[in-house]
Each structure stands twice: as structure tokens, then as C-alpha cells.
């Protein structure tokens, strides 16, 4: 890893201004960023810490509003989340490990755009929106619109400030993933299902970003490539199996 300067702005405006500099990256929990810097994939000169922006509140009313700097662990332990959106709590328990969850942030997990991550497909299926701030002001977009491709997001020098998740109510929801090597491996397939009203089904990990599908037939059209997790055929097969299992689980989910 090459040496870098760490900046710690105290306001969103200040942070956005600093991000304009060359070779500058925002820094949330750092769990992905640090690995990329160690591997030499990213070599930023300056990191802008978002820690002092006071974006770590979880507000639950009918809907859920989560500050982007909320740690995954705080979300996992939130009583309001467990009551209103138990599928989020269940998912977080198998997301990486407790050491990572203690520092990784919700905003970072969404902005990183790694399709192997669990929250992007799940929050997409839950119909969540992200609020992003740029120098020109704020805009709101659905989580699934954050993604342009593998490790590519659609942010334009913007920062995610909040995630807003509508009430789940009594709808059945499930997220299932399949790891093909060790249990703590990145998933080969992730499937998120929210049933009732308008069914929302998202497939990820096997695809280069979370992809919405409407039925099993749509699986054939998915663009899936073979990698170290498995061949394209195998992963397509796993999507089919796990989709069926996720739908079963969502139907039987008890709130």
C-alpha cells in the first residue's frame, strides 16, 4: 500500500468539496477500499473520511431511514429493523463476519458495486431508494439504479447520504445465497425475493450487478459468466434452485 493523506471533514458540503481533488476517494468503513489499496488496484493520494458527517442514525417509522455511515452491525442489532424488516436482520447475520460488520457501512456496501455483496439485491427487492448528495444538490434513486456494471456505480462525484426502505408489512421476504467453496466465501449466487403486491425478485453475484427478474423463465436470459466459483452452467442452475428455495422461504416467512 502506498502512503496517503487522511482528511476528516465535519460537514457534507466540505466532504463534497474535498472529493473534487485528484486521486481522492471517499472512505466509509474501509473494509473493501483497504483491500483494494493493499492489492495496488487503487492508489489514492487522499482519503476523505465520512465518519464525522453524522450520517449514522437509524430512524424507523412506517418506513426505515438509514444514514449511510450506519455500520452493518448497528443495523443488525436494531430492534426496529428486526421487528419491521426481519429479512434484513437475518441477512446481516451471514454477511461476512462480525469483525467486518463492526466497521463496514451501509453506504459503502451499496456504493462499492460488487455484485457478490448481499445488501444490493436485498434492498433492491425491498424497493429501497438511496438519497445521494452532490455539489448541485440532492437526488433520490432506486437502489438497483446505482449499478452500471461490475464494480461500477452510477454516482457522479456524489455521496450516498441515506437509504429509505418502505414498510414491508406482512409481505413475505427472503434472501438466500449459495457459496460454492468455504461457508464464508463470496456467494456464487444471491437471490432476494419479496412477495405480495408486486413481487420483486433480484438475482445477484452470478450476474455483474443485481438484476430484476419476473419469473423462472427469465433466468435463461441472464448474462452469467463462469469464474472460480463455478461454470456459467452451474451458476445458472444454482440460480434456479435458490430462486425456488427463496420463494418457498418467503412464502413461509413468519413475522
Amino acid at each position, binding site marked *: 500500500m502506498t502512503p496517503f493523506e487522511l482528511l476528516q471533514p465535519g460537514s457534507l458540503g466540505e466532504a463534497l468539496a474535498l472529493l473534487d481533488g485528484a486521486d481522492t476517494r471517499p472512505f466509509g468503513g474501509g473494509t473493501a477500499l483497504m483491500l483494494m489499496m493493499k492489492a495496488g488496484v487503487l492508489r489514492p493520494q487522499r482519503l476523505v473520511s465520512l465518519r464525522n458527517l453524522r450520517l449514522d442514525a437509524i430512524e424507523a417509522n412506517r418506513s426505515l431511514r438509514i444514514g449511510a455511515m450506519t455500520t452493518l452491525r448497528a443495523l443488525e442489532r436494531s430492534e426496529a429493523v428486526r421487528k419491521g424488516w426481519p429479512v434484513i436482520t437475518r441477512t446481516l447475520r451471514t454477511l461476512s463476519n462480525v469483525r467486518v460488520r463492526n466497521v463496514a457501512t451501509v453506504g459503502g456496501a451499496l456504493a462499492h458495486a460488487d455484485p457478490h455483496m448481499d445488501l444490493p439485491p436485498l434492498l433492491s427487492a425491498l424497493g429501497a431508494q438511496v438519497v445521494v448528495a452532490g455539489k448541485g444538490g440532492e437526488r433520490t434513486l432506486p437502489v438497483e439504479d446505482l449499478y452500471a456494471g461490475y464494480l461500477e456505480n452510477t454516482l457522479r462525484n456524489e455521496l450516498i447520504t441515506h437509504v429509505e426502505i418502505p414498510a414491508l408489512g406482512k409481505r413475505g421476504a427472503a434472501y438466500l445465497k449459495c457459496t460454492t467453496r468455504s461457508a*464464508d466465501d463470496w456467494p456464487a449466487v444471491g437471490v432476494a425475493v419479496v412477495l405480495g403486491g408486486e413481487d420483486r425478485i433480484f438475482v445477484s453475484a452470478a450476474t455483474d450487478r443485481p438484476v430484476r427478474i419476473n419469473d423462472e423463465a427469465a433466468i435463461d436470459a441472464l448474462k452469467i459468466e463462469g469464474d472460480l466459483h463455478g461454470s456459467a452452467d452451474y451458476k445458472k442452475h444454482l440460480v434456479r434452485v435458490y430462486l425456488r428455495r427463496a420463494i418457498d422461504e418467503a412464502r413461509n416467512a413468519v413475522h
Partner: protein
Amino acid sequence: MKRATQSTETPQVGRSVPRLESWLKVTGRAEYVHNLRLPGMLYGKIFRSTVAHGRIKRIDVAAAQALAGVYRVVTSREVREVIPDPYYGPAFHDQPILAIDKVRYVGEPVAVVLASDPHVAEEAVHLITAEYEELPAVYDEVEAMTSKAIVHEVLRPAGTFPDLKHLKDRKNTNVALEFRLRRGNAEKAFRDAHRVFEHRFSTQQVMHTPLEPLVSVAESTESSLTIHTASQSPSFVRIEIARLLGWPENKVRVRVPFLGGGFGAKLYIKLEALVSVLSLLARRPVKISLTMEEQFFTITKHASTFRIKSGVSKEGRILARECEVWWNGGAYADIGPRVTQKSGFTAPGPYDIEHVAVDSYALYTNLPPAGALRGFGIPQLVWAYEGHTDLMARELGIDPIEFRRRNLLREGRPQATGTVMKDAALEKVLERISVLMEWGKPFDRGAGTIRKGRGIAIGFKACVSPTTSLAAVNVNADGSCIVYCSTADMGQGSDTAMAQIAGEVLHMAAESITVVHSDTDVTPYDMATLGSRSLFHMGNAVKLAAEDALSKLNVLRKELGLAADCPIPDIFKKKYGMQAGNVAGAGSYIPSYKSPDANGLTDNATPFWMVGASGVELEVDTETGKVRLTRLVNVADVGTPINPKIVETQISGAAIMQLGFTLHEKMQFDAQGQLRNASFAEYKIPGMLDLPASMVNEAVVAEQKTGPFGGKGVGESGTFGVSPAIANAIHDAVGVRLTALPLSAESIWEKLK
């Protein structure tokens, strides 16, 4: 015999003494080379080859040298100013300190940048460029037998092993060693057999993954050198560095504190020659700490292919067996030729077979070098012969345990080499597995998409021989005791075991004894900490040294007219008139051994046998091919456990490590010999969630009569049976036979669909 001491009423041997260093480790005060910083120290970062086989045309270091903060960039040209013939290795002098003329695998060290700041050194490495004229490469061990691509133009055996001498100057071959064993007449026996079975098995290249990556520091003057290194073989390092420099052994000092795991990765020369040369060139201390990822390019475990053929009688007795094993040694021999020979002779398995033919080949290829990894080749062999055994039992309609029972080597019967089995509890281990698995009871086969199966496997190993251990035991004037030995404690608990052995002899509590770590200026010679040899060899040496000290104390008691039970401090007070002096005991141990003849036969192949078996219950998801172990039972013959708790954790640790090699781990190379998964995001070792829900780890009641207090090695035995037991259980569950490791979910699904 009274074994109790003043401070404890229990005997020392057979007691689960908590590890002596545990307090230091949990409070972060145990010494590791990784924490060592010396004044003026430079950090070295390695520039590595990007091609698998090629002639070096040009190395451009100008930009790296020009980077602010870079002290010096070193290539093989500068290395040769210090050492004209800079090739090292335990079996062959084939490995250059930095690549000379040719590179032989992707990741081979080509140049080093030195800087006071390791980040600057790393940055400068990115500025080095090299041009190669690419040569045809060979990656597969069987292809290497006949490939036109030749990894080494000329073979250079080290000369330390008399049986490798005939290979000197051999040209145009990738075969570093062929081991041959012939007993009886296998060909004729196959013709007479009721049934003949033949199978082919393979294993993949994997890595040791010690949590503490390889690290060495050297500091030097013009005529002396001190190397601080995470090494399992300090005595070898001293001898080999002295040889390379043309210096006497007493000018090279090798210090080894604790190791954060070794498993065979930290043997012989790894970074030691490089940091030595760099320190002599720079006239400053030099440290190189590998990253986790760089370890993939340093030392690995042999991939292998094994063709096995057996002739069986109507009664289910194995009459003849033919074994052909190809070991993928990578670009440098390391200890591969020893694996080929010393494990090769047990390839027919722990069975009583009259007619045996074994051919075992050590091959050079253009992959990272392979050496010993927790089993010295044995897990690769057991994988094949126990899969083969199960397939035969299935075909013959005989219960797999019963089939093994009929053919198992019994005490007093000759093994393939002709060496008679002694103190090898094969029957006990097999029967104990049968009991723990409740083999006779009905077994729930599962239903729907979850099918259940079970399987067992048993393997054995001959301890590598002949090897030497020396130890010293010092008794101070106050009666306290220090043990000096060069065994490296890399987590296996050897300090504790040696203290228990010395304490047993001297009637002292193990907890009161100090064990001094390897320092070749202080501790006596030891061959190395490898192959489960230390408890037996060093244990015997420590026992002899303690007995020597005890007998010297008894002589003093007699000379001074003291009672036989006179406390130790009183002996010294009487002798020297005050608290002064000490008594030093010395012990040296080398077992008897006879080299095999031209047919691989000898009546004394090994000082002791290790036995390990595993039983597995598992579930297979028939829709995905995913396997979940519900129960793993491991039983071993370790002689009499010196420390039962450590024995148990050694068995479980070995089995879990082998579980990773069985189900997940694999170094994946592309067609150009580039490693595709040199990171722990893509090379998956088992985590807590991969452990079986239920695990039993047991040592049978046994005794190694020649071992210290009946004990022998345990570090590897837990690895033997795991892989074939899992494959056998998968076959049992879903009728699918896999013959290549790892047993991935996809490979099972492929066969199920």
C-alpha cells in the same frame, strides 16, 4: 516409580500441562520475527517473474533505483559478487537466490528493492521491468515425464544424500528422482488373481497458509552473520548459508523465536540466503516479510497423479499391487525427491500384500516449487489407495471395514519394503473407528434432496529416517532447570512436551522448566522440526540429556557423601560452599536405519510408524452437489500421549486442515502458468462454519517402545484419512465417485445430473 515432584503430585508425562507459552501469546509478548526491528534496518521487496519459463533478456532497474528513498536494487549480478555459485536446496542445488539467465515459474524472485521504508520499496518494485524470451513450459506432472520443455538443463544433486549422487549432470530430463520398489512377482500374481482392479487418482496443488507468513532478518559484519528467521530448520540454515559463503559454521548464527505455524513451509532455505546476501551487500540489517499472497509463489504442496492396480483372491485377499505415482515438484526440487522416496515406499498402503511394485517419480514443472506439507506426501497416497480400497470392496460386495480387516498389516508382518511392523496399532485404530462410527448399526440414508452417506479410511506413515537430534539440559545451583534444543515451537506445543520429558526424568514440574529456543550459537544441532519427528527424536535426546544431568547429580551426591534424596541446592552448596555452579547433561539421538537396496527393500526402513484413520458422516444436497459434514471421527496411534490435550488438538487441527484441502482449496493456474487465485478472497481455507457439527479426536491406547516414555509423533496423523473418507462417504450417499481433489460441489453436481 515415583514421578511426583515437590510442586505437583501428578506425573509430568501423560498430564495435560497447559502450554508453557500460552500466557505470553495471549498477552502479545511472545517473540516473533515479524515484530523485530533493528537499528538501520532496510526492508526488501521482491520483483517477480511474470512468465512461467523464459530466458531473461533484460532487467531494467533504473527507474526503481532513481525513486527517492530507494537504497539499492539488487539482481543476480550483485548476488554473485558475494556468492559466485548461489544455488541452494536440500536435495538439489538447483534454486538460485535470484533468477539467473532463466526464470522457471511465474512468481520466481528476479530482483529486490531495498529501502528504509517498506512502502517505498514496494512502490519501486512496480517500476522495474524485465524482458524475457519465452520458452515452452510444462505444468502437468505426467506430461513432464516426456515433455520437450526441460525445466533444468542439468541436474545438480546436493551430494548430502548418497542415493541421489548417480543423478549428477543428468541432462534433458524433468525427472529429478525415480524411486523403485519390487517385492515378489506382481505381474504373475495379477495373472493368477480372481479379480484385478485399476484406478487413477489425482490431487491438486495447495498452500500451507501459515498465519505468520515467511519472514527473515539478517545482520552482518564482514565475517559474521546473524539470521533471525521463522524457520523450522535452523541447523540446516546455518550449514547451508555457511556452505554458500564458504564460511565456517561458527560465523553464521541462526536464531528462531516462535513461529506462527509452519506445516513444512518454513523448512530449508526460503528467505534466509536472500537476506544474508542483501545484508552483506548493503552492510545494514535487512528484513523481508512476505505477504500472505507471496507465499503462493514460495512453497506449496505437490499436486500428484497415482495409478493403482490390485489383484484380489476369491476370498477378498489382496495378492498383488502395482503403484505408479507422479509428483509435481514445480520449478525447484526443494525436498520433493525425499517425498518421492520416503513416502513412495508406503504407496501400497497399510495392507499385507505379498507382491508389490512401486514406481514413484519426482518431476520438475514450471509451477511454484512444492515441498512437504503436513504429511510429507502421505495424504496424497492415502487419498488414492483408500479410494481404491473402497471401490474394490464395493465391487466385491464386501463391507469396507471387513475388507480392510482381512487385508490389514498385522504386528510382526513385513511391510512392502520388508521391514517388519512394530508398535503400529493399525488394528486397534481400525476397530476404534468402527466402534465410534457405530458401523454395525442401521444408518439413516436421508430423503428427498438431502442424501446421507458415511465412509472411512485408514493410512500410515513411516517416519523419515535417519535423522539426528541433540539436546542439552542444564541444572542450576538452585535446582532449576533449562532445556536447550533446536526444535521450533510453531504451535504444536513442543516446548511443553520437552519440558514434560525433562521434568519426568528430573522429578520436576514441567511448568518450572525453561526451554531455550533455537539459537545455533547456543542450542545443539537438530535436523529440523518436520515430519512428526521431534517428539520422538528430540524427545529421546532431551530424555538422554536429562538422564545424563541426573546421573551427574547422583555422582556428586555420592562423592560428597550426601544422601540419595539430598535436595539439589544442597549438593551445590556442599560442593562450592555457596549457591554456585551447575550441571550440564548432553543427549544425542539417531535411530538405526538401513538404506533400501536396488529393489527398494530394507529390513529397517523407519524408527516408527504413524497410523491415522477417519470416519465421516455427511449429507449431499442432490440439487446443488453441496456437501455438509455432520460428523468427523479421527483416530490415531501416537504411542503414549505425553500431553493428551495437545495430542487431541493436533489430531483435530490436522484433520481440519485436510478438510480444506479436500473440499475447497486449490491453486488455479491458467494456460500460461499464471496463478488465478493468489488471495484469500479466492483461495478459500475452512472457516468455523465449515467444521463438522460433531467431531471426535482420539488416540488409541498404545506404546512406542523406542519412544520417550512410549511416545511418538502426532502432527500429521490426523490428515491421513480425511480426504478418502469424505469421497467414500459421498459415494455411499449418492453413488458418485470422484477421483480428483478437491471434491467441489460442482464436480458432484456434474456427475449427478
